């Protein structure tokens, strides 16, 4: 009987209609007029997309204040990586007590962006940055090394950047 009445009198539907109606009117009267728009999407290609702080984008190596690579080649990230996309080769250098990577390869095509590597890192030397425009034209561009001129492990790669808002020309 309760179920019958509930189906008969569509309060839930009315409630839902009210909510969406409210959304409609708010967006309809405020789109592009308020500083803080009510709609949750941005006009992405023209306006840079706003990422949430915990967004997991591409893997990136960090440097400290002096410009030195923070990585000490403990191999924790390489070991924990479930898809084994990280390859590290290390070398000893005089200027520093700890080891320094000579090679740090990251094969993005297999990466699942699980952030295990970042969690396992004891020195906070890698992060997943906020780059999400990862499409490339060649398969080789997917594997990123330390010494690439075009794209490397230290910054956001310019490959396939579709946003035109912050383009310099």
């Amino acid at each position, binding site marked *: 009987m309760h179920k019958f009445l509930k189906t008969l009198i569509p309060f839930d539907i009315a409630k839902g209609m009210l909510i969406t109606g409210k959304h409609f009117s708010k967006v309809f009267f405020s789109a592009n007029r308020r500083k803080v728009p009510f709609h949750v999407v941005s006009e992405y290609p023209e306006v840079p997309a706003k990422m949430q702080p915990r967004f997991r984008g591409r893997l990136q190596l960090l440097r400290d204040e002096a410009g030195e690579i923070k990585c000490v080649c403990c191999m924790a990230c390489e070991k924990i990586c479930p898809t084994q996309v990280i390859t590290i080769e290390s070398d000893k250098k005089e200027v520093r007590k700890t080891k320094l990577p000579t090679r740090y390869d990251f094969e993005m095509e297999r990466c699942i962006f699980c952030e295990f590597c970042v969690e396992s890192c004891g020195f906070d030397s890698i992060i997943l940055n906020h780059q999400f425009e990862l499409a490339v034209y060649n398969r080789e561009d997917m594997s990123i090394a330390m010494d690439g001129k075009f794209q490397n492990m230290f910054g956001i790669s310019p490959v396939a950047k579709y946003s*035109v808002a912050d383009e310099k020309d």
Partner: protein
Amino acid sequence: MPTPTLTQSVLIAILQAILVVVFIFVIVPLTLFAERKVLGYLQQRLGATRIAGTLTGLSGFLNRNMWKMGKIPMLSYWRGIPMLVGDVLKMILKEDILPTKADKFVFFIAPAISFVASVVVFAAISFVPGTLFTLPQWVPVIGGLPVAGAVGDVNVGLLWILGIASVGVYGIVLAGWASNSKYPLLGGLRSGAQIVSYEVPLTLSLLAPVVMSGSLQFSELSRSMAVGLPIWGIVPQFFGFFIYLTCGFAETNRMPFDMPEAENELVAGFHTEYSGMKFGFFYLAEYINMTVVAAIASAFFLGGPWLLPFGLQGLFNHFLSPHLPALLVTFLCEPHAIFFVGKIILLLFVYIWVRGTIPRYRYDQVMAVAWKYFIPLTLVNLMLAALVRYFAV
């Protein structure tokens, strides 16, 4: 007023048909566009804002430069307007694919049945009772003659609409069968079962106005439902309106009941194998059907070409029209086609609103709602209408 000869009346009928087709082809792309935008707004999105990418096309070029200057594009609020043309162009220019194992003739004829059935329904819909406008004298053969508000306001107009609309189901079922593929077949079967079952409560809910007005003629129905009823005529109309609207959603395969094309269950349902303009015909037919359902609802329940819905206009005319100036009386108390079209547009908005709100029903729920809830409810509603008819009118 001269009685028109046969040639003249045929020419006027052709003119009316052209007007109806123009009306359809204005309102359908607008609905398509509104669907994108309104659905976006309902979900806190912006809807379609461009037809080409940022780097190609005129709109992309303009937008890009506006953004670079640090400004929101001037026409930003209305961007996406090219979508009106873009949708139609896409349908016309797309490649038309014929599956190898499809039944060619049936595959070809199915969208045509769907489309024709939905357009022919407009023959009996009267936009305004009596004369829509009188042709000026300089028109060659048919000058000075009145053009009626309906193509053919026959005295079984409502049945005509229901009958032709029920032929439309063949389009979907045959399309599902002719594609020779499993998802279309399932979609066609679902649609057939759904439409045949929802036709019963739909017709029963439309019987309440028929009982109350005692006619089957569209204009007469709309007149007596709008201005011919005393105040207590509202009650059965009110519930009948919602039942009718829900059945109309189901009949046109719209969102809470879009079983035939449930995307996440049946790929695209009955039109999985269709592309190009053949798919376009199904698409158009769906939107024309929406318009028809909205037209019937607005004529019978929302007061048609009069201003006020649910029979309140009769009350208004009775008590207020002696005290109002003549201009206001003409505007508020007499039928105008523009009110009718306005109500149709309002109901089309409701369609999109419902689509943006209510998730799809499960198939057994759809059938249960039709047979267990709507048919008894419509019978009760019919009884109420009969009581109103017996005691009040």
